[in-house]
């Protein structure tokens, strides 16, 4: 355990050192990331010029869930996206070999392989933007804990899904589909659960689980919990996690270690 923590710290350090060799990137990434937020907020604002509320939600509430979805996305990029893009490439060109030859637990190290410092600043700014519209007086300590727990749960779901799809690289060659798809997910993740008609709700909870990413967190912050949804979020997260472990292990058996 101690060794794993040391290695994680070392990886984070090395990634930071690598990042510092390219100074201009931090600024550009910051501008890039903020463009997404900016564009989302403007779109929302423009629509609200024509309607006073949407589906029972006012602007502030939809703004909050929008910020939560952005935070979810950045967290996803930080621990999942960059790392699994690297791993998918490594599976295809065989550079995964070196990781497989080392006496450490690759799965535990995975979230830190390519720790993306560039997105730390956007995360901080987005948290700040989120806090502007939150009513702190109405959020108790338990709610904060619950919100953070379910937020992490949402990130874990995205992590597991990315891992499962990356494992497919063991069988099929070029497999960038998950990284392209996930890019579009923030558009869906920010939609409150009440907007989904009954027919498609199940699909978006169990099949393309966008509803469980930030809706639980949002509900807890506004003290409006749907306990069934919370339970579903935890169970799906657990199931996906085990599936991701299984697909990885099974995929490794199929690894052909390209030259």
């Amino acid at each position, binding site marked *: 355990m101690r*060794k794993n923590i*040391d*290695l994680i710290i*070392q*990886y984070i350090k*090395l990634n930071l*050192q*690598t990042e510092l*060799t*390219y100074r201009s990137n931090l600024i550009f990434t910051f501008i890039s990331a903020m463009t997404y937020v900016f564009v989302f907020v403007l779109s929302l604002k423009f629509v609200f010029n024509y309607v006073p509320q949407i589906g029972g939600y006012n602007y502030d509430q939809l703004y909050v869930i929008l910020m939560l979805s952005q935070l979810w996305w950045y967290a996803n990029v930080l621990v999942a996206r960059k790392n699994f893009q690297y791993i998918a490439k490594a599976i295809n060109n*065989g*550079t995964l*070999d*070196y990781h*497989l*030859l*080392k*006496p*450490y637990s690759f799965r535990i190290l995975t979230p830190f392989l390519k720790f993306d410092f560039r997105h730390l600043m956007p995360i901080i700014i987005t948290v700040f933007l989120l806090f502007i519209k939150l009513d702190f007086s109405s959020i108790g300590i338990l709610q904060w804990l619950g919100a953070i727990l379910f937020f992490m749960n949402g990130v874990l779901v995205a992590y597991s899904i990315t891992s499962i799809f990356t494992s497919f690289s063991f069988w099929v060659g070029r497999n960038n589909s998950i990284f392209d798809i996930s890019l579009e997910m923030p558009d869906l993740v920010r939609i409150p659960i009440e907007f989904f008609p009954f027919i498609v709700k199940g699909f978006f909870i169990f099949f393309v689980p966008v509803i469980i990413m930030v809706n639980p967190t949002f509900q807890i912050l506004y003290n409006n919990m749907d306990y069934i949804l919370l339970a579903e979020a935890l169970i799906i997260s657990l199931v996906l996690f085990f599936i991701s472990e299984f697909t990885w292990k099974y995929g490794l*058996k*199929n*690894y*052909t*270690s390209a*030259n």
Partner: protein
Amino acid sequence: MKKIISVKNLTKNFKVYHKKQGLIGSLSAFFKRKYETVKAVQKINFEMNKGEIVGFIGPNGAGKTTTLKMLSGLLHPDDGEVSVLGFIPFKRKKDFLSQISLVMGQKSQLWWDLPAIESFNLNRMVYNLSKEDYKTSLASLVEMLDAKDIIHRQVRKLSLGQRMKCELIASLIHNPKILFLDEPTIGLDVVIQKKLRKFIKEYNEKYNATIILTSHYIGDLEELCKRVVVINDGILGYDGDFGSLIKKYAKLKTIKLVFLKEVKKENLQKYGKIIDFEPLKASLEVNREKVGEVASGILNEFSVDDLNISEMPIEEVVRRIFENGNNE
């Protein structure tokens, strides 16, 4: 004595999908794919003792690298048994991985944007080395490879040869008992090749490490391996003494000549078997032991513009081995 490496009936197949050329081919493949099985390694058997250096030779696609990858645990064999240091490699136990190393010529484990020393330090932590062991090992390797000036430079700024040196340091920092070297000298110039071979020999003598080296250059093996294993199309064709292999199957070398003045074919015939002849160019086949003598004889007698001595290509050696059906 228990064998440090033991392989029985080791087999590995790959599924490759077969596609016809052109638009029709692609469209039909879109709907239905034909797979064919490539038999990369077929029922090979061999054993090694501690401290041995064995060379694996064979043409491209022979199965050398696949065998090495099964020995290091990267690939799952489809059949057969393999034991290295008493472990089953593909179970990838940490104790096993801590004692082996696989160096691949074209793949790098070094962090591209940072000095090599950072990657060494990372490996120190990966392999749980104490600071003293790390310092000793690093100093020893740096000295053997003459790498003092390059380890603090960014990896992307190093030449291919320099990078190879750093790769070796990174791979050996933990003093592995077993070293797998996959085409380590490929793409390197002659000077560096010689240096690396010298290093590998020294390393083996100093640490009594067991080494398997794959290559398709006979030159790589001449300096290092007393014993060679020849593989082609996944089948083991020869396992034995290198000297005997050369004597039996690679007796001949080729001398290619370019002359300044035209020569007569009869004057050249006494030196060896003529394969190609033009008044200003010729190729001769000569016995290995006689090459030096023949070369100096030709240089003395004729006006030579260029003289090139080359080994019999590995494909030819392998062909001869398999023709003879020699399966020691």
